[in-house]
């Protein structure tokens, strides 16, 4: 029984070796290759072996073998013309036993002669090939006879025909402290987000991307016709639910179901309605991701719960057992400032508010300097911060779907990126972690956790934020989720 590859959870280990991708067996016949001895003056037609009178017994014995089976055809393994095959008899007749081709080249032992000795014997029934090969192999005129191999593409995950495999670049899947340890927990029942639905709220998505599952529902709202918004939504979905199929990427919670809701309702942004509508379509244990920010009173981007209608919508959704994950925003804004007193930026909506941190791949790659962007797990320069920011994740160069900088081409369905960034890239990482936790909880305990329990687990088990130059710990973005530790709390 083929077993799952323990390292990746994908592909299969068979008796023959590791099979990263299953290929359909081509409809071609099995056959035998018989290599005639150089010195055997035997040739062949489409149905039998022939030889001059002096060597007729050799041909006869070969034909005796053929006569025991239903033979479809006999032909040159190298597709040589019949005249070339026939001419081998004259050369073979004058050769000594086991002649050295280099020595007898001037006597006709050229490439054509050597190739002319390879005979393809194709039976009507594929199951006869072994017996034919064994019988011919015992014949004195034959140097070697064997069943022709049936090759399969020598691929492992990563070299499948078509799109490249970008999974090795998904460092956020790796074990803590660099990543969140998603791949490490996938072997636990439910921990791939099984039975959980994730609804992403923003403006556009390419739901036909080759690496997304089918059936991602648009729950409501009007899609924004813009490539930038489309790439963004596609990238977000890729982080959480891209399929484990040996091409592209694999989502953190790739057994979760995807759904989307546009924030455009009645021709205007109405995030509160989108959250409320999404919550009505979801169940306890499911996840809503708010992938939006807006300009706050200081002219900087802030989290959407600053606005009171959105705050109330989040409170209502979490009260139904739905975990809401919310991007903190990219405004380099301090939510603890007095200007935000009494607003949603200093109150608990029940959401998990996500800041952006520096990943271990902490360099710019868009200039010659390759400068460092900071200390891994410290606050990245644009991330908002404050007491309500609960956890952080990679805010720079996340590998996922869309954009086309990693793999482009004419079809957006095959676009991939190595550079999705911002609290936008961080929030789906946390969303995927939440889905893994809730899937695991349902599998183990028969029920999901309450949203505040999920948040507490992520905050108390995560890999701590660290300080960096100009970004002290008091600029709080919280820890990076640590799923292996979190799973022990379920």
């Amino acid at each position, binding site marked *: 029984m083929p077993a799952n590859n323990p390292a990746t959870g994908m592909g299969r280990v068979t008796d023959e070796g590791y099979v990263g991708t299953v290929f359909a067996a081509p409809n071609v016949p099995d056959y035998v290759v018989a290599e005639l001895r150089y010195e055997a003056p035997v040739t062949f037609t489409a149905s039998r072996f022939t030889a001059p009178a002096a060597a007729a017994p050799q041909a006869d014995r070969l034909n005796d073998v053929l006569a025991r089976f239903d033979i479809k055809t006999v032909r040159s393994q190298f597709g040589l013309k019949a005249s070339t095959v026939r001419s081998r008899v004259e050369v073979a007749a004058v050769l000594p036993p086991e002649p050295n081709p280099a020595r007898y080249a001037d006597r006709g032992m050229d490439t054509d002669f050597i190739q002319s000795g390879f005979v393809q014997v194709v039976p009507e029934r594929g199951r006869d090939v072994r017996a034919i090969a064994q019988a011919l192999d015992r014949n004195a005129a034959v140097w070697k006879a064997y069943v022709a191999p049936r090759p399969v593409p020598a691929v492992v995950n990563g070299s499948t025909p078509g799109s490249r495999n970008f999974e090795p670049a998904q460092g956020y899947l790796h074990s803590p402290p660099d990543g969140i340890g998603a791949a490490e927990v996938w072997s636990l029942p439910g921990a791939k987000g099984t039975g959980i639905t994730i609804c992403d709220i923003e403006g556009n998505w390419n739901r036909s991307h080759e690496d997304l599952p089918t059936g991602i529902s648009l729950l409501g709202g009007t899609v924004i016709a813009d490539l930038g918004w489309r790439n*963004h939504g596609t990238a977000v979905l890729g982080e959480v639910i891209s399929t484990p199929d040996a091409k592209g990427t694999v989502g953190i919670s790739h057994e979760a179901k995807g759904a989307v809701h546009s924030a455009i309702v009645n021709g205007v942004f109405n995030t509160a*309605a989108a959250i409320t509508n999404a919550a009505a379509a979801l169940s306890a244990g499911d996840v809503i991701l708010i992938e939006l920010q807006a*300009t706050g009173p200081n002219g900087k*981007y802030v989290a959407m719960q*600053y606005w009171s209608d959105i705050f*109330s919508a989040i409170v209502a959704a979490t009260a139904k057992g739905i975990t809401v994950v919310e991007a903190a925003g990219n405004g380099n804004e301090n939510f603890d400032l007095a200007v935000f007193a009494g607003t949603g930026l200093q109150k608990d909506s029940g959401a998990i508010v996500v800041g952006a941190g520096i990943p271990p791949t902490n360099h710019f790659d868009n200039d010659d300097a390759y400068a460092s*962007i900071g200390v891994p797990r410290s606050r990245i320069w644009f991330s908002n911060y404050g007491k309500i920011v609960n956890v952080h994740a990679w805010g720079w160069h996340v590998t996922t779907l869309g954009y086309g900088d990693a793999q482009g081409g004419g079809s957006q369905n095959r676009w991939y990126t190595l550079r999705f960034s911002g609290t936008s890239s961080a929030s789906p990482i946390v969303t995927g972690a939440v889905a893994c936790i809730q899937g695991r909880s349902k599998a183990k305990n028969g029920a999901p956790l309450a949203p505040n329990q999920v948040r507490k687990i992520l905050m108390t088990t995560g890999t701590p934020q660290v300080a960096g130059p100009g970004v002290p710990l008091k600029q709080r973005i919280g820890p990076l989720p640590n799923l292996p530790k979190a799973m022990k709390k379920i």
Partner: protein
Amino acid sequence: MDPIVPGVSLPPNSPIRRPVELKLKPGWRFDAGKRVFVSEAGERVSPGADLPKRTRIVPTVPSLASADEATLSPAERDLRRHVQVILPPGEPPDRYVDAVRAWPCVEQADVGPEVSLP
């Protein structure tokens, strides 16, 4: 430090408008059929004269507007007090915010947020 701040705004010619968003005082609701705000005490505020023609006034969350209040959570009851004033294309919302704030049924009003992608 690289000045890049990730963010994606709406495309320049987007038809998506910014509304005026208001929160009603407790006890008030919008009667969409009569285009009038009504209070539990029977007071009425008609917004028509302050707004351009073809302005739409809609509950922020329509599904909550028609729901039985007894079935709503406190957060949903709060959310039900939110209303959007969607002006016709080309009408700048900030021109109408003060007029909306002056309605006696309104607790607070602002131009809707300028939303982008983080």
